[in-house]
């Protein structure tokens, strides 16, 4: 048992880093709200929503090893579900087949789950059969399909996007109140982190891990990699879709940009900055991204040049992201 002590301290360090991350975000929001800085409160909500999206993608990419360049499809789909529901609710019109609009978040989330799961199933069924590079390009291609579709559909704004009159409603909260909305997002982040952590420590997670590390070992051990990966892909799409729905509410605006390859890239960046395959990687990564966007972006329009340089350095020299630097290697037990 001489190995357990280093294991335990490393795990403790990571837990502390994770806890601090959440605490910092929470306190920041409360404090900024007390100062009356609603713009900045929304900025913290933006961090939280990006974090949820990153947690979702991390399931497929970080844990499942499926490099998807098309997850913006799910982010955008969730956002459009939110936007379209609000749109039809606002003018009393119908969507299709008698479905009228709604402004209830819970209903919208259920619809988002169904829609994203459906598309993820189709895209997954075709792409997951393929290996490595093909998978990357195919997920990108499918997202592009949905992007171009949204771009040319004038009813919902097309290229200009869709404005929402107000945020959708959640029981007991006033979603137009920025700190209430933050609390809602934060709650969802906690839930998604908790669920991901449970899934990954259970039998499914063990299988998914090995599906990423060594598919041949998984199959030889008697577990078919394909359904495991497909399930992870669908779960990941659902979480990313919910993040998208929240994002639409945050900005009261949806546009095809949310479906673009650039958005897919940003989702991957959130994970990379924090640490690929680390539970709280996306949380820290999203925070770092928004900080750079806000403060570096304040100095220069070309802040993405520096983002690119930082990314390059991380990929080449510090693959584990910020969490690796703070809390050391990933533990597997």
């Amino acid at each position, binding site marked *: *048992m001489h*190995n*357990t002590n280093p294991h335990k301290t490393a795990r403790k360090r990571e837990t502390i880093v994770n806890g601090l991350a959440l605490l910092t975000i929470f306190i920041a929001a409360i404090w900024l709200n007390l100062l009356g800085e609603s713009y900045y409160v929304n900025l913290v909500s933006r961090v939280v929503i990006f974090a949820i999206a990153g947690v979702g993608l991390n399931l497929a990419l970080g844990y499942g090893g499926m490099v998807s360049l098309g997850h913006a499809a799910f982010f955008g789909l969730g956002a459009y579900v939110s936007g379209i529901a609000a749109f039809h609710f606002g003018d009393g019109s119908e969507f299709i087949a008698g479905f009228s609009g709604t402004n209830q978040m819970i209903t919208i989330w259920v619809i988002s789950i169904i829609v994203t799961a459906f598309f993820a199933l189709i895209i997954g069924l075709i792409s997951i059969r393929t290996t490595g590079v093909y998978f990357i390009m195919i997920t990108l291609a499918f997202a592009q399909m949905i992007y171009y579709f949204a771009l040319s559909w004038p009813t919902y704004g097309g290229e200009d996007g869709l404005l929402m009159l107000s945020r959708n409603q959640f029981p007991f909260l006033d979603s137009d109140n920025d700190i209430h909305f933050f609390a809602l997002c934060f709650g969802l982040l906690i839930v998604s982190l908790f669920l991901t952590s*449970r*899934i990954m*420590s*259970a*039998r*499914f*997670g*063990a*299988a998914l*891990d*090995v599906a990423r*590390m*060594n598919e*041949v*070992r*998984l*199959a*030889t*051990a*008697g*577990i*078919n*990699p394909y359904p*495991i990966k497909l*399930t992870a892909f669908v779960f990941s799409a659902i979480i990313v879709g919910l993040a998208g729905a929240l994002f639409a509410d945050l900005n009261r605006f949806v546009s095809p940009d949310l479906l673009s390859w650039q958005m897919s890239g940003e989702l991957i960046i959130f994970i990379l900055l924090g640490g690929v395959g680390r539970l709280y990687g996306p949380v820290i990564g999203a925070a770092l991204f928004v900080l750079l966007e806000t403060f570096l972006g304040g100095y220069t329009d070309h802040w993405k040049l520096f983002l690119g340089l930082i990314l390059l350095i991380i990929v080449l020299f510090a693959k584990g992201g910020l969490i690796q630097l703070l809390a050391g290697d990933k533990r*597997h*037990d």
Partner: protein
Amino acid sequence: MTDTILRIEALNKSFGALVATDNVSFDVKKGEIHTLIGPNGSGKSTLIAQITGWLKSDSGTIWLKSKNISNLSVAKRSRLGLGRSFQVSCLAMELSARRNVMLAIQSQQGSSFRFWKAISTDKKLTDEADAILSALDILDFADTRTNELSHGKRRELEVACALALKPKILLLDEPMAGLDPASTAGLTKFLEQLKTEIPILLIEHDMDAVFRLSDRISVLLYGKIVFSGTPDEIKASSVVREAYLGK
């Protein structure tokens, strides 16, 4: 017939003009170790790939007991009881030895679509894993990361993972490769005891072990089985001597 655990019937596989498997038939019976020998390039890897499910044969059938497994996936064949170890260790290197074994136990115990209960505290998995590791005398290394294990320990871990499937038959691909004499002796003894419970299809180059362990030996040459018999018959055969053991 109920004595035959694995039966290969008229298997054929070609890659364009290259005939890798040429009408191969053989079987493995209860309680025996049937060894396949043959020089490099004789088509052993292709044959194993077809038996385990990585390659689809052009024609022929593979039976595991009374079940036709020719069209089943690799994972399904493993679950049905076809255990196998690899010539080059194929393990999850970042995981501990125990975790590698737990994976096979998990599949053997049921579905992997379980999302709630943590496996690290699941005694049904950990206890059984420890039992198997102990049977192979590597329990001390249960928590060691696989990439920190020595070559010999990794070979033993591979066998442990195969055993964790509660297999009906074991397909061992050069398990002695790279082992020192002490480990080779240990593994040989282990396999001798094991064959009474689980028959073994062995692929090996180490001739001492082959002649010591085998009940039957088949010689594969250019994709064809040119001779099949007991170790004594093999030694006496001129066909084999010419083709394989050198003049």
